[in-house]
């Protein structure tokens, strides 16, 4: 069976093999130095060399961090990320997140740990949130948006669907058959009837007095027996 070879694979294989040979050679060459380094007399010198090495490593790390920041801040990286997001990568990630139910798992873990509550409470109680909410509520744009939503046909359709839904019917049945609601309605109706009757009584009482005073005035007959 014939295997297809590519030139770059051959070059890569040669480079790896050459590196291994180089490493083995270096180990053999450095063997006397390693033996000398293990000698007790070499401690002071080795410490100085180690300190020098540590300083070099820290310097290299700082350099790497600065370079990484420069790279991340560059417009090229922005363009690369933009191209990546515009491509299939985003769809793949979204599909993967949905397939493995990542959001649901994270949310359930956060809810179970109480982190979500704490984060939400902190966000809601934050001064900036309140300020933001005030600004949104005071903005004419938000008002226009609300008016548009209220006037929209979609809202009417949505309301109709909700009103005609079986759940709404069930809820209404539950409310109407609830003894508490019935009692409250009866009390309210009775209260209104009582209020109306009291109003009628007050007015007729006034008419009683006025009519009696008028007729007695005509007859010049003062009222007696008032208690």
């Amino acid at each position, binding site marked *: 069976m014939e295997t297809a070879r590519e030139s770059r694979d051959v070059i890569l294989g040669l480079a790896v093999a050459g590196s291994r040979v180089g490493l083995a050679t270096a180990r053999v060459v450095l063997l006397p130095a390693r033996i000398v380094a293990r000698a007790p007399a070499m401690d002071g010198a080795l410490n100085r060399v180690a300190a020098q090495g540590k300083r070099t490593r820290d310097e290299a790390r700082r350099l790497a961090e600065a370079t990484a920041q420069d790279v991340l801040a560059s417009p090229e990286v922005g363009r690369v990320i933009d191209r990546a997001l515009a491509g299939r990568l985003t769809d793949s990630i979204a599909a993967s997140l949905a397939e493995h139910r990542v959001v649901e798992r994270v949310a359930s873990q956060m809810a179970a740990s109480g982190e979500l509550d704490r984060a939400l409470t902190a966000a809601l109680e934050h001064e900036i949130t309140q300020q933001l909410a005030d600004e949104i509520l005071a903005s004419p744009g938000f008002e226009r948006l609300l008016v548009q939503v209220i006037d929209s046909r979609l809202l009417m359709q949505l309301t109709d669907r909700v009103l005609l839904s079986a759940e709404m019917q069930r809820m209404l049945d539950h409310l109407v058959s609830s003894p508490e609601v019935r009692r409250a309605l009866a009390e309210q109706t009775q209260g209104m009837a009582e209020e109306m009757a009291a109003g009628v009584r007050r007015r*007729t009482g006034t008419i009683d007095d006025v009519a*009696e005073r008028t007729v007695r005035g005509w007859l010049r007959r003062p009222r007696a027996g008032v208690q």
Partner: protein
Amino acid sequence: MNAPRVPYAGIATRAVGLALDVLFADLLVLVTAGVLALVGSLVGLDLSTGLKVAAAGVWFVILAGYFVFFWSTTGQTPGMRLMRLRVAGSDGRPPNFGRAVVRVIGLAVSIIPLFAGFLPVLVDDRRRGLLDFLAGTVVVYADAPFPELERADVAVVAEPLGPPV
């Protein structure tokens, strides 16, 4: 400053109470008549003139019975109850059956001459109408104490046919 409240019910309050009672009693008669008419139509009963007169008599009996029953038992018809009124004899208690019957007759007599029988309410110190003079009763507010004047003047009030003024 508000004038002291008179414990006797005035003409407008009594008129509203009476109107409500007539409405309730007529509803009662209407329902009864409806049921009887339905039964009559099912058995093929034809209402002759005699039966119509009898029906009118039944209407009057039911109406009178309504007032007599409530006056003699609780002293309050439903209409009077809504207006917080009650009818009482000189002892403060509801009139007995006989007085209630006399009062119903007095009511009819007061209504026939275009309600002229109620005019004495406007001039009498105890706001009594013709029916009250006939039955020896007064109409007082149910939520007010019964006037002591009545108790002290039992002999006068108890006279069923006293002077109208």
